[in-house]
């Protein structure tokens, strides 16, 4: 169970960390300064959440392996290889245009909001505490991204078309969110993790509500790309990690 709990924490941390990195690439490029600030603020919240989960994972790993070089939040974030990352494929998809980045944020915040709603009741005190802390931040993200989906979907002809395209691009990556990896099943059985079946229903209901307001529709095909949670990632993840980890790989242990 301890191994599953560690993997579960890494999965939650990696999701937040990778999306944080991706959103941060918009810094200086968003359509107007206020939205640039919004997206980077969301990145800041996500890196904070990732740090809390990495710190907890490091603590659990070090309890398991007392004699070894201790793991730290930094070693977990910057020195693991691509196949060790457990984030879902959604967060590593390319940023695309503004609409696609915002749709990815909405899909993820909607998922994360209902995930944390369950995790605040986790029997693991630290996971419950991190969820309690994070859900207030995620609520802002969900509200902000929901409003953008409506603004763009029910906006101009061009913004609507771009949203339809974004849905086509990203929909195949939504299924994986609700397909449990073995560590998620273990953590659910232990009373520590979230029930993805319930989560999926909450998520779909909210997606339906926002999409119908936005004059958008959910695709009928339900093919799901999967593997990210088990360390099988897309090509984009490799270049993304190369950039993200560059400094620690080139100058191990560097600080500023």
């Amino acid at each position: 169970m301890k191994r599953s709990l560690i993997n579960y924490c890494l999965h939650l941390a990696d999701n937040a960390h990778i999306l944080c990195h991706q959103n941060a690439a918009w810094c200086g490029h968003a359509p107007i300064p206020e939205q640039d600030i919004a997206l980077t603020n969301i990145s800041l919240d996500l890196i904070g959440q990732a740090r809390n989960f990495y710190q907890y994972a490091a603590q659990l790993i070090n309890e398991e392996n007392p004699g070894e070089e201790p793991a730290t939040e930094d070693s977990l974030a910057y020195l693991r290889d691509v196949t060790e990352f457990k984030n879902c494929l959604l967060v590593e998809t390319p940023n695309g245009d503004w609409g696609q980045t915002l749709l990815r944020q909405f899909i993820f915040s909607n998922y994360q909001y209902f995930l944390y709603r369950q995790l605040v009741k986790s029997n693991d005190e630290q996971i419950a505490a991190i969820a309690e802390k994070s859900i207030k931040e995620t609520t802002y993200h969900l509200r902000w991204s929901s409003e953008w989906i409506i603004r763009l979907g029910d906006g101009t002809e061009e913004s609507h078309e771009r949203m339809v395209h974004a849905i086509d691009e990203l929909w195949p990556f939504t299924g994986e969110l609700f397909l449990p990896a073995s560590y998620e099943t273990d953590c659910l059985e232990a009373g520590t993790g979230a029930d993805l079946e319930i989560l999926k229903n909450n998520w779909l209901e909210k997606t339906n509500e926002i999409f119908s307001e936005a004059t958008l529709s959910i695709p009928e095909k339900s093919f799901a790309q999967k593997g990210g949670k088990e360390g099988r990632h897309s090509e984009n993840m490799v270049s993304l990690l190369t950039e993200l980890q560059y400094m620690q790989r080139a100058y191990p242990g560097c600080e500023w």
Partner: protein
Amino acid sequence: MDISENILAEENIILELMGTINDPEIPVISIVDLGIIRSVKIESVFPEVEGKVTITPTYSGCPAMDVIRTEIKMALLEKGYKKVEIISSLSPAWTTDWMSEEGKKKLKAYGIAPPLDQEQVCTPEIFQENRAIECPQCHSMHTRMVSKFGSTPCKSLYQCEDCKEPFDYFKCH
């Protein structure tokens, strides 16, 4: 004085010391006024003062927290407290309700609109009506939100429709 009085006295001294440390990004308000200091618990005073200062982050990723932690450590060491630990606690989660009235006054005088009470805490419902925020410059209630997200995670960006000044609002959390 018996031991319990000594302990209480030390706790008060340390709490007062914490009150002299200001938030690095909003240098007019102390970390006690902000509600970041959750408790000061002294366990023994002899041969050395030993105990814990418990702090809680405002936002998970707020970079000010690392600076605040260092400043607390420095302040304690300067006064000779070598065995007072700093503990970080996430639960219960920080809320703007913990900000003192004194702190809210200081914020306003500094030009940042203080948070409203907690009923304003954000829910995911879209396009909510926001309660009017008073302009800290001219006190007009005729203001508008420019962006939910501002210069730091704890603030939103507003503009006054009367005096036209942009200002920060310390958002409810």
